[in-house]
């Protein structure tokens, strides 16, 4: 379980960093190759970065699907809890379990639909336009991400039923900033 947690975290951090660096390099490359320096310009233009935009999009789509699963575990998905917060503790607990179950159900259904979809695409020769990689590799993010997310919902629900504890994302918390006081 620890291993899965770490894998998830490393994956999304890596995807985020890679996408940022790739886009940055593509921008610098285009900018530099705009200068008319004999030899250098031809060399720069010969470096093909037309795949950068497509790869960035795919990396972020993967990051979004797995990051959403991580978000369940860290309680980052916002909901409308105005009404629920006014209920009695016992009723509130029921609603929390219901909404976690709904999350697991939805992501489970999407995972299954996604799996069928990927299976269908895998039977074809569809490739991405720029990198020309098989499209089903790309679409694999949907079933994998959604199933992981479904699992995370169930995991959170299980922990909640047993201990009454929910992961809560504190939007106001910034490590190391509280102690800084200027005067």
């Amino acid at each position: 379980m620890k291993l899965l947690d770490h894998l998830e975290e490393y994956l999304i951090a890596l995807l985020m960093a890679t996408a940022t660096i790739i886009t940055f390099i593509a921008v610098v490359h285009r900018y530099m190759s705009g200068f008319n320096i004999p030899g250098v310009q031809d060399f720069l233009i010969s470096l093909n970065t037309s795949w950068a935009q497509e790869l960035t999009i795919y990396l972020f789509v993967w990051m979004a699907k797995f990051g959403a699963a991580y978000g369940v575990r860290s309680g980052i998905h916002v909901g409308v809890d105005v009404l629920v917060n006014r209920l009695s503790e016992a009723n509130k607990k029921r609603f929390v379990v219901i909404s976690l179950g709904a999350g697991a159900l939805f992501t489970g259904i999407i995972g299954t639909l996604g799996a069928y979809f990927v299976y269908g695409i895998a039977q074809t020769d569809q490739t991405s336009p720029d990198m020309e990689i098989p499209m089903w590799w790309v679409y694999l993010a949907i079933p994998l991400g959604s199933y992981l997310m479904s699992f995370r919902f169930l995991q959170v629900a299980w922990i909640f039923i047993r201990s009454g504890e929910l992961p809560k994302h504190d939007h106001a918390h910034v490590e190391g900033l509280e102690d800084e006081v200027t005067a």
Partner: protein
Amino acid sequence: QNPIVIKFSHVVANDTPKGKAAERFKELAEKGTKGRVKVELYPNSTLYKDKEELEALQLGAVQMLAPSLAKFGPLGVKEFEVFDLPYIFQNRDVLHRVTEGPVGAGLLAKLEPKGITGLGFWDNGFKVMSSNVPMRLPSDLKGKKLRIQSSKVLDAQMRALGANPQVMAFSEVYQALQTGVVDGTENPPSNLYTQKMHEVQKHVTVTNHGYLGYAVIVNKKFWDGLPADIRTELNKAMKSATQYANAIAQIENDNALDAVKKSGKTTVYQLTDKERADWVKALMPVQKDMEGRIGKDLIQSVHKEAAALGLK
């Protein structure tokens, strides 16, 4: 008895040549089948966007589309990239000999294993170059950043000019041309004009170097399941709509080029024969380079159609 519904989705506005042709097809099809078929039009990507419509068609979520020919390469039918090759069609007559003859039929047949039946080709038109520098010779574009659609052929084409091809999302193009993120691009005149790109481009050169067109396609399972007499009527309607589509596309492009000239914002330059020969010379090697991808035989069969018209 309920009519058979054909959902026809496309990504452009109703008042474009493609939109008008789709409306004409709807009219003819509904009349020809005496109301046994109802065609529902979904313009402007209201239902499915550019990137997803082909998959939606294969899933059967829509029955009819008219995607640009560049969309079929990623689907696994690289032969369609022949349409992107620079200077592959000397003129419209050659083009229509291909799209309406055996070569075109052979291409459409390649879609069948993908669950797609092709009904015909609709023109948009031949492309012109636009940029903020005057372009008489190919060397004028050396080192310039030129926006292209995702395409290996178009990438090779711009590189053959010594330019730096940039794949860029369509929605970002206008502003990128305006601020100078890219220096220029290629479009048929009607697209250039309707997207107002001439407002942010100082020069247009009528190179007619490449072609932009569409294929009208239907979901194969749906099509094969239609009664034979209905298919005959729909084919008839399509044939007539195609003639209409190609005629208005030509007019639309001519008018657009005039309007660009009249706007005074852009200089439109017509190449002399000698200059055109230079462009052809610079871009012809692309046809050779792409033989491996697209197929030597296919490229030659297009050349044969040109030869049949007495062109070399």
